[in-house]
């Protein structure tokens, strides 16, 4: 049984979340404060956490940090704060995804499932097959419609940072650190490489479906066409 810890001090939100998650076969634990959240995480070992950032007894950012110190379950932020700084801060602290309120229940559940899948996959799959292209991250081969496409080493590094964990929101700094470790961060160069990648892989590079930008925060590699 998959157990989800829902942390929010808005009773009506947690109630709706609990109804939805239980109807989909999850077990739900509810915590309304940061202290209860950490206690429940320790006592019940949830498989994933849905966390609000504004808690009565502290910031959700601190909860992310504290949770990450003891376990590595997926953490999904659910917050009214839609500023880029809040998002980046939470993701850098170790959160897996960020959903802003108000949210659609289907989207939230889809994001949660994606996070759980990512986490439960014992070994990262090096091969990614979409309906438009196929890539093998270990072999470093890419084919679009059966034809081999050549990617530069830097483009492979960018793709590696994103596609190893499909669906996960990766911040710009995390991509930069992966591609150019220790170097001064050059966001303009990263954008150029992303543009090249999209031209080579995306069916419509001006409307990317697989290498998606979350403006001001980072990027997400999407395998399926379903909106995430």
């Amino acid at each position, binding site marked *: 049984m998959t157990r989800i810890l829902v942390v929010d*001090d*808005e009773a*009506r*939100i947690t*109630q*709706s*979340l609990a*109804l*939805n998650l239980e*109807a*989909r076969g999850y077990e739900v634990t509810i915590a309304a404060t940061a202290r209860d959240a950490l206690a429940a995480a320790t006592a019940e070992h949830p498989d994933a956490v849905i966390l609000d950032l*504004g*808690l*009565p*007894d502290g910031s959700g950012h601190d909860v992310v940090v504290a949770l990450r110190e003891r376990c590595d379950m997926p953490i999904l932020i659910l917050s*009214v*704060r839609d500023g880029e700084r809040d998002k980046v801060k939470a993701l850098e602290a170790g959160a897996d995804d960020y959903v802003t*309120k*108000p*949210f*659609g*229940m*289907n989207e*939230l*559940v889809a994001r949660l499932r994606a996070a759980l899948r990512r986490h439960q996959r014992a070994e990262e799959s090096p091969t990614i097959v979409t309906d438009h292209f196929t890539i093998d991250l270990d072999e470093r081969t890419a084919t679009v419609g059966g034809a081999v496409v050549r990617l530069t080493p830097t483009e492979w590094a960018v793709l590696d940072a994103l596609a190893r964990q499909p669906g996960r929101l990766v911040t710009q700094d995390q991509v930069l650190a992966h591609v150019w470790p220790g170097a001064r961060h050059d966001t303009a160069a990263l954008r150029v490489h992303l543009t090249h990648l999209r031209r080579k892989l995306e069916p419509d590079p001006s409307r990317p479906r697989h290498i998606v930008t979350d403006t001001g925060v980072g990027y997400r590699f999407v395998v399926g066409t379903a909106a995430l």
Partner: protein
Amino acid sequence: MRGYPRPERPLALPRSRQAAGWLVLATGLPVLTSVLVRSDADSLAVGLLLYLGIVLAAGAVGGLGPGLVGALAAAGSANYFIVPPVHQLTIDKTTDLVALVVFLAVAITVSTLVHRSARLSGEAARSRAEAEALAGSTATLVAEIDPLPSLLRQLCATLPLEAAAVYTRTASGGWSVAASAGEVGPEPSGAEITALGATGGPVLAVRERGTLTSADRALLGSLRSHLALALTAREIQSEATRVAALEQADALRTAILQAVSHDLRTPLASIKAAVTSLLGHEISWDTASVAQFHATIDAEADRLDRLVGNLLDMSRLQAGVVHLNLGPVVLDDVVGSALASLPSDAAAVVVDIPADAPLVRADAALTERALANLVANALVHSPPGTDVLIDARDRGDTVALRVVDHGPGVTAADMDRLIEPFQRFGDTSTRPGVGLGLAVAHGFVAAMGGTLAFETTPGGGLTASIVLPVHRMRTLETA
């Protein structure tokens, strides 16, 4: 720092000292001559030494003029009255001639030396005073946040000035006094007006008490640069204050926007979560769940409506467009309708209005909104299991409609800030309401001519009182 400029001509002794020197000479020489003539002592050496004494005294007091004139006059007197042959300017003995010539040379040399030493010590004292003035002014410049007034006071104390002031140009082209010492007019006037910095910019005007010497002017020049520095420091300071105020206003605006967006989006999030649950095809909900989603949508829509209502009320209050409809109001009615406007979990409210409570003169709708906001605030801060009490206290001319809670209360310091809009104590983001409720309540009560008072509930908690005037019935004028 700039070097202190040397005066362009030697300092002259004051006239009084010069006169004293001439006086010493004019009285000393005849007296000594007559004494020497009458005495039988025939010693030229003693006579010349005594003359030398008079000459040196005259030179020391009166300067070079009395010294030189004294030397010549003393030599002449000694020759004429004392050196044989007496009463003739001829000299018999060679030794006497030598003595007189040596006397003259010594007297002139010593007079010159005395004069120069007096002048040098005068200059030294002057330089020291100027150095002290400059050092004092520099210290002021460094030590004080706004050194301009102190610098002007020091200027008046150091130099013979009655008044000094710094004027700056106003935007309209007029003058304003930036700082002053002594009596000054609203526009630059006086003996001396000099620019501080660029032409068309600030000026220094001074009114002299005596005549300024060239040394005084030089010192004034040095101190003027200090004044210009002080003025710049003041401009930088005021610029910094302005920037800080702007930043503060900006931070407040951001905080308000965040609070409003949080409070608008939270109920929206509940509604959207419930609606999208119902819309999804993945799950077929049972009746109980559907009812729960519907209840959530209903309650959160009401919450949103109250918030929007408070935001509109606040802007009406701030725009001053609250229309009053004052008349007799029955407290029971107002309490009933206020409670009806609150969510159904307002069950923890106990109402204790005496049956004979007087009518108040108020606007029924505004009183209801104010009371509803106070009760909503009290409910939010009430721990589970405690009641919120609404009662009324007859105080003769006024009635206090009170909302008593047993929550955490507020500190005395926070009590005054309760009615400021967008205030929320304790945690910052998750309590319901952006802190508009109490501000709106206060605005409405004040608009009706009443007062909203807060005090600590005995035993802990907050008691809010809407104090309204009692409505006096006109006596029935029956015949």
